């Protein structure tokens, strides 16, 4: 897969979809292409995050540790991004990503990503917009969940 295909791929991810192609290309260029075989961890829950991964091909499970063992909470595949929260704020990884097939990903390092944001504020605004969208969505879901809970209590 070439740089220009990666750019295509990045554009399909909501977080990056609003960015100008030239910036996406730079982002792709400064990122590493990495390969995993089935059953490998991209990262581990609790680790400090240093990169986000855009999955170019293949599939992986999102696993969360529970007292009874690891619980699969979701599955990710081509065109999705994982680990992006950890590169925006210094929180430990909230889940483990384990590949189920062989997988190819673009590894976006935290430093490079933040540097890009600092250099191109329009990019930061775009990211902020996406995050705000997500927040409002989460908030409305929370409100709904709360009201449901209240109804149950009542």
């Amino acid at each position, binding site marked *: 897969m*070439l740089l220009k295909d990666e750019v295509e791929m990045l554009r399909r991810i909501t977080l990056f979809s609003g960015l100008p192609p030239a910036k996406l290309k*730079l982002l792709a260029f400064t990122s590493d292409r*990495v390969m995993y075989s089935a059953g490998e961890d991209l990262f581990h829950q609790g680790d400090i995050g240093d990169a986000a991964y855009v999955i170019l091909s293949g599939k992986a499970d999102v696993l969360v540790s529970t007292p009874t063992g690891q619980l699969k909470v979701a599955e990710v595949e081509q065109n999705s991004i994982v680990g992006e929260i950890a590169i925006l704020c210094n929180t430990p990884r909230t889940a483990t990503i384990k590949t189920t097939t062989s997988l190819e990903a673009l590894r976006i390092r935290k430093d490079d990503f933040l*540097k890009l944001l600092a250099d191109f504020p329009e990019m930061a605004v775009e990211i902020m917009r996406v995050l705000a969208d997500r927040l409002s969505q989460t908030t409305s879901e929370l409100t709904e969940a709360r009201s449901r809970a209240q109804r149950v209590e009542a």
Partner: protein
Amino acid sequence: MEPRLSRYIWTHTRKAQLWILLIVALSMIPYFMSFDLPKQIVNGPIQGQGFETPGATQLFMPIAFSLPLIGEVNLFSGIELGRQGTLLALSLVFLFLVIINGLFKFYINTYKGRLGERLLRRIRFELVDRVLRFPPHHLKRVKPAEISTMIKDEVEPMGGFTGDAFVQPALLGGQALTALIFILIQSFWLGIIAAVIVAVQAVIIPRMRRRLLVLGRERQLTARELSGRVSEIVDGIGTIRGHDTSNYERADIAARLGRIFKIRYDLYQWKFLVKFLNNFLAQVTPFLFYSIGGYFALQGRLDIGQLVAVIGAYKDLPGPLKELIDWDQARQDVQVKYTQVVEQFSVEPLIDPKVQEISVAAPPTLSGALAAVNLTIADDGGAKLIEHVSFQVRPGETVAITGGTGGGGEALAEALGRLAWPASGRIVVGDEDIHELPEAVIGRRISYASSEVYAFQGSLGDNLLYGLKHAPLTEVVYEGDKAAHRRWELLEAKLAGNPSFDLNSDWIDYGAAGATGPKDLFGKIRAVLDVVLLTNDISALAVRSTINAVEHEAFASEIVEMRAALRRRLEAEKLSDLVVFFEPGSYNVEATVGENLLFGTVTDRARWELALESHPFFKTVLKRAGLHETFYGMGLEIAENVVELFRDLPPDHPFFQQLTFMTSEEIPAYEALLQRLRGRPLDEVSEEDAIRIIRLCFGYIEPRHRFGLLTDDLMQKIVEARREFSDGLPADLAGIIEHYQPNRYMASSSILDNVLFGRIGHKHTDGSDKIRAIVRDLFESLGLYNKVLAFGLDFDVGAGGKRLTAGQRQKLNLARALIRLSDFYIVNQPLLALDQRTQDQITRNVFAFLHDENRNPAIVWVLSNPALSELFDRVVHFENGRLVHEETVETPSKDSDYKELAS
């Protein structure tokens, strides 16, 4: 130190000074004779005195004198010579005297020079010796650069002066006096005139020069301060830039330079005024001679030969006189400098030289307890860091000191390590004060490590073994020229009051590390490196270094053999895609196009660049292989991509580190070049431009850059062109490329690259970590790991150890203390640069290490993590400089634990 320089010089060079004075006195005889000779020549053979009749002869050189009691003694009755014969004979005598005078001068100057250099060596050594004995509080106050300026520059003139200290006044005074007496003999009045002028010069000039001395002293002080400030700027550059105070520093330096300028300019003005006056006085005398002497001659009261001799002799008077005045000036000048330096180095209390006396024998073990008795330690300002602390460590006991920063534990540890001296109270071992015991005992039986590290410039290994170099332990046997040189060294060292310890001797005290000799020392080194977790760091440094493959032939061939082992290992672990190996017949996608084309590495970058630009070889080969046009197109593509990607970025952007094709400065140039070349076929492009484009290809790696430029066909062509490059390389490019050969060590590549013989794939996130672990493992299993570590120990740590990380430096420092077998280990938060987990790990390792092999040394450890205190026998807690709490740690007996578990 002796406060007066002249006395210092006299004390140390008395015999030599007397000898040279004697020689100078002897040299006066031919000197005086050479004055009288011109008169004899002019009056005798030239003007005809004694040759009044034709054919008259004179006796040449009769040697006869009369002695009381014995009467006339006639040693040589002389030779009869005619007028011309006499002229020739006298002229030859004159020439002879010139040579004799010259030889005397040569001998005297050489002798004086040697004398001066010896004294300079003595002073410098004595000053450094004093630095080694300075009390700790003084060392905190002085600036290192000022000290080194004093030792290096400020004492230098003293060496030059030494030779002249007594000889110069004697010689010049003698010369001046000779000349004056000679003039007086020739003509009383002319002599008086000369004497009066000399007296005026001798009185006025030195007076005027006194001001020069004052200025000179100021110049010395300001220059020394300047050098101190400059070194402060260099050391503190991070702070200066970080706080944007560079302009404050500029102002400070400018002000200092301004002051120095003013002082120096004053100095010049005054100096030249003095010079003017001096010259004037010197020139006035001949005026008087010509006018008055000429008048006498006209009147017939003085013959012309006498006048010529007087004027000739006077020519020799201002010279010595001026030099004599200069000498006096120099004397006062160096005296001032000397006083200044001596003041700086006269510090009390200096450590007694006896304490630092060299001792070859192994010191006795310390059987008494190490104790602080009513100890108070104050900082420079007088604030008390610890107050009235009494504390004892028995041999074999382990004590943890807690209390954190400001508690006082660190100050106590520093005092135990002799870095801080007691303000009151004592530190004793048994019942002897540690400051009175020789360092040969204390410095070896007590080891101290803190987080303040000093690593000396040199190899890592030298730094590690630094604490074992107490005394020269072997007698080196020299032969032939070297033996003669050694004898000379010893003699000169003795004459200059330097010690004669042989630096070539083996200084490493193997016994002090628990080893028997160089052979089993490495085992000890390995053990301490493992303890402080430095082994991996060192092997990483080693594998990245290049070695001399000729010198280490056996090792190099073992490395070459490892290549196959690595392949097998990777296959076994199903990691074959981790490394793409170099194969002569196939393209290596993880290597650059350049590497693939040359199938080797460029050993001489500068020559390579030049050859690429101007040598026809590359172009011919590329053309023949059908790559010229392809590469041009590829280069254009790369340039387009790079310019597009990086155009908007500021030049110092970190992303440029990922740009391997060109530097950030070159981007605008390439942008312009692209504008010019776009849409033009290659044959219309100038040679120079084409090369600038083509060279971009050489750095291209498809999986890394992903521009999609390499096709299978192209890769095939590149592989085919390899042979041309290796076989057809013209003689003038020989040695520029080192070719990859599966069965040969590549001297210009690192050890790791030689083991891999390939490139690590980009696809694995932790590829290089994995490979490094595998390679390390292979080294271990093949028994090569220790050899690799030995290369790592050769790593140059740089000035102050700056090429190591802070953590590595602290580990090294701790290892340096641990490798010595001591009775007491004082450890003062040695690993602050490391994270807590590693610190704990190393602390536990150190405990296990020190209590291994039936050793039971005492340990005092200032802990930054109190949780570790369970390791110790006793915990001592400090607060506000006082020992507030002390408890014995209950160590649960292990046996009972097991019993409980078993039951």
